[in-house]
C-alpha cells in the first residue's frame, strides 16, 4: 500500500483533515474517509455530475480531483448547503416543485445550481440549462429541475 498523505482542508466551513492514499479521489475521501456520503458517484469519470462539489467556489466533479489536491482549499458539499435546520431556498424549491424522483443526482444539481445563484441572481432559462448541462438526471427530463431553480432564484432575490 502506498504511504498515506496528511491533508488539511476546509469542508463546509469547518477545518477538516484526513489521511489518504495519493491515488484516492476527493470523492472517495469525502465518502469513504469522511463519511460525507451525500456526494454521489454515478460514473467516476466526470460525465454525470452526481459528485459535484465546489472547491474554492468553483464547481468540480470530485471524482476528477485527487484528495491530496484539497490541501488548503475550501470544499462545499451538499451537506453544507442547508443552514442548520433551515433548508436553502433551492432545497425547498426542489421539494415544492417535485424536482427529484430517485434523488441520486439531486445533491449534485443543488450544489451546481447554488453556485449559479451565488454568482448570478437572475439567470434566464437558457442560462440555467447551460449551467446544469454537466449534471445528468435520468428521471425527471429536467423540466421540474429548471423550474425549481427559477423558483429559488425568485425567492433568493426577494
Amino acid at each position: 500500500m502506498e504511504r498515506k498523505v496528511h491533508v488539511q482542508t476546509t469542508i463546509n466551513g469547518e477545518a477538516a483533515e484526513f489521511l489518504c492514499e495519493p491515488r484516492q479521489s476527493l470523492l472517495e475521501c469525502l465518502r469513504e474517509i469522511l463519511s460525507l456520503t451525500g456526494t454521489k458517484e454515478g460514473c467516476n469519470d466526470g460525465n454525470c455530475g452526481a459528485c459535484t462539489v465546489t472547491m474554492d467556489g468553483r464547481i468540480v466533479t470530485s471524482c476528477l480531483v485527487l484528495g491530496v489536491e484539497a490541501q488548503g482549499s475550501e470544499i462545499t458539499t451538499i451537506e453544507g448547503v442547508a443552514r442548520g435546520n433551515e433548508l436553502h431556498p433551492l432545497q425547498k424549491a426542489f421539494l415544492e416543485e417535485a424536482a427529484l424522483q430517485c434523488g441520486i443526482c439531486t445533491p449534485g444539481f443543488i450544489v451546481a445550481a447554488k453556485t449559479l445563484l451565488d454568482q448570478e441572481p437572475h439567470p434566464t432559462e437558457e442560462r440555467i440549462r447551460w449551467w446544469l448541462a454537466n449534471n445528468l438526471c435520468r428521471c425527471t427530463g429536467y423540466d421540474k429541475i429548471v423550474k425549481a431553480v427559477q423558483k429559488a432564484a425568485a425567492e433568493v432575490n426577494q
Partner: protein
Amino acid sequence: MSTQYNVIGTRPIRHDGADKVTGRALYGADIQLAGLLHGAILRSPHAHARIKRIDTSKAEALAGVKAVATAADLPESGEKIVDLGEGATPLSYIRGNVLASGKALYRGHAIAGVAATSQHIAEEAAGLIEVEYEVLPCALTAPDAMRDGAPILHEDLHTKEFGETTGKVSNVADHFRFQIGNAEQGFEEADLIVEREFHTATVHQGYIEPQNATVLWNNDGRVQVWTSTQGSFAVRDTTACILDLPVAQVKVTPMEIGGGFGGKIPVYLEPVAAVLSKKSGRPVKIVMSRKDVFEGTGPTPGSFIRVKIGAKRDGTFTAAQGYLAYEAGAYPGAMVGPGAMCVFAAYDIPNVTVDGFDVVVNKPSTAAYRAPGATNAAFATETVVDEIAEKLGIDPVDLRLKNAAKEGTKRADGPKYRRIGCVEVLEAIKASAHYNAPLGGPNRGRGVGIGFWFNAGLPSSCTISVNADGSVNLVEGSTDIGGTRTSIAMQAAEVLGITAEQVHPSVVDTDSVGFTGVTGGSRTTFATGWAAYEAAQDVMRQMKERAAKLWETDASEVKAEGGVFSANGKRMTFAELAARIGETGGPIVGRGAVNPRGVGGSFSGVIADVEVDPETGKTQIVRFTSIQDVGKAIHPAYVEGQMQGGSVQGIGWALNEEYYMDESGTMRNSSLLDYRMPTTLDLPMIETIIVEVPNPGHPFGVRGVGEANIVPPPGAIANAIYRAAGVRLRTLPMKPSTVMEAIWAK
C-alpha cells in the same frame, strides 16, 4: 368525475424529501459496516469465448486480498427450472449470468469476483486473475444470429415454436404467434397496404446510480443483503435460489435506489458478494463502475421489426401483420412478448397476426426498460400509420381516432379491453394548444404518436399502526424510486381522513413486511396503494369498534367521514380517538395484502415539434407535449414527472442513444460521455396533459403512470422529422449521420 377527495389529487411534499435534498438519504453504495471489504468483478474481454482455465493464485497472493470467487464457488444449478417472477427460466441461465460457467457469452460477462481491504486493491487483484480463453465467432444482431450457420450461444437451447419444443438447436429461443381474424383476408379488403422494415439499436436504462450490493454471510448462516433494487423480495428469492438456500435465510434491506427503469430487477452482484463474504468472514460491498453497468447489466433489446398495415380509402384499418425479432442478449428472455402484445394495441383492427422471435446474441443479457418491448414496436407502427395518413390525405390524429382501441376491442394476444382512455388521449391531443399552434420556423415539423402499456398487478403488502397523536405509521415493501412512499401514503390518508403528512411511510426489509413484488410495471401506486387502502380500511373498522366501545353502541352505528367519527350525535376526530386506543383495547394495526386483478392499461400520446438542421442532420426538439391516461393522478406533480421523464428517455432513444458495437462485440461508447443521454441543454420544457379515465379495477381509479409515456416518442419524432426534412427514418437512433444519409439519398 364527481368524486371529491381531500388528499388524492393534491401535491404534498414527499416524505423522504428532506433526506434527499440534504444528502442524508442512504443509497446502496453509502453503506458502511465494520470490517467492510470492497469487491471488484473481472469481466470477459471477449463477446464469445470458451473459458479454458482460470488461475486466481496471483490475485489471492496480493496483500489485502481476502477472497476470490468464480462460478465454481456457486452451487451447481443442474436442470432446475425456477420462476422468480419473470416466467419459468432454467436456473443455469440466471446463475450463468452472475458468473460465467464454461463460456463467456458477451463482453463484460462476469468471470470472477475479488474482495479486498480497499477498492483499489480489489481492482488490481481482478487484473491479476489469469483466464485462458478460446475466442469464438460471435453473433451480434437478431438477423445475424437467426442465420443458418450462425455461431451458437447455447448448445442446449432448443427452439420453442408455437409453444412446442422442437429438436432444433438455434439461437431462436422462442417463436410465437398472436392471431385474431384472418390477416390475409383482411389485406385483400384493403385499398392501401404499407409494409416497412425497422431496426432499433440496443439502449440502456441509464440510471445514474450504478448497481451495488453489500452482503454479510453471518456466523449464524443468515445472509444479509443491503442493495438498491426495484424488488427486495426478488433479490431475496433470486439470491437464495442461486446459493441454494431457503428463501428466508436471506434477508434483504432495500437502500434508497438511484433509478432503475426495469434495469434493477435482475440480480448481478449479490450472490458473488455473498460467496466472497462467506469465504472471508467479513461483509463485502461491490459497486459497479459505469463501464460495468453498460457492459455487464441488462440493456433493452435491439430489434428488427416488420410492420404491415392495410387500410380502406376512408382510413379504416382492415388488417395488420407484425414480425418482431428481438435480441435477448446472452440468455433467452427478450421482451418480445410484451412488444408483440403492444405493437398494434392502440388500434381496433379485426385481422391481426404477430410473430415474435426471442433471439439470443452475444450482448449483455437484456432486462426490462420502461414498457419493455413496446417502444421498439410502437416506433414501427406509428411510422407506418403516419405514412398511411399521408397517403390517404387524412389528418394523422383523425386516422388514429378512427381506428382507436376502445372498450371491447380485442387485442391480438387475446384480452378484450375494459374501459380504456385511448380515444380520450387522442382527443386531448387534438384539443391541445400545442397541436393547434403554428410551427414557428423553417426546417420544422410536427409529429404525433401514441402507445400502450398494459401495466402490472402483482402482490403487495402493507401494515398501518395508529399512533396516540393521531398519526399513523405505514410499513410497505415497495422500494421507492420516484415518490411512491407519498403516493401510497396519500391513499391511506384519504381512507383514514387524515393528511398525507400524518402518515409516516417506511420501506422495510424482507423480514419486516409481507411479500411485495417489484417496483415495476407501473404497479406500485396501483397495487401497493391498494394494499395501503386495504390496511387503512382495516384500521377504520377497528377504530369504529373503539368508538362504539366508548359510546356504548354498536360499531355498525359509527360513521366516519373526513376524519371524524360520529354516532348518535357524538363526534370524535381521528386524533381524539387515536389518543384513547390504549384505554379501549390497546394498539390498532391494520393490514393489507393484495394480489390485484383489475389492472388498467395506460395509453399515452406525444406531440413533438422538431427542427432538423439540413446541413448537419441534427434534430432539435423545439416543443414537446406528453399526454397520458393515468386513470387517477394521486400526486399530479409526480405523475407529470413520470410523463416528463419517460418522454425524455424516449427522446434519447429516438435521437442519440445506442450501444455502438464493433465487429468483435465491444461496446465502443461505454461511458456517459459517449453514450449520450439528453442533458438540460438538449431539451425544452416538457408539457404534460394528464387524462383521467378512471380504472374501474382500482378503488381510486389508478392505472399506473410509469411506463406508457416512453412508448410514443420515437415514432412521433420520426414523423416530425419527415415533415421537417422530407425523409422517413426507420432506424433508431435517428442520429445526425442517419438523417444526413437519408437526405442525401433522397
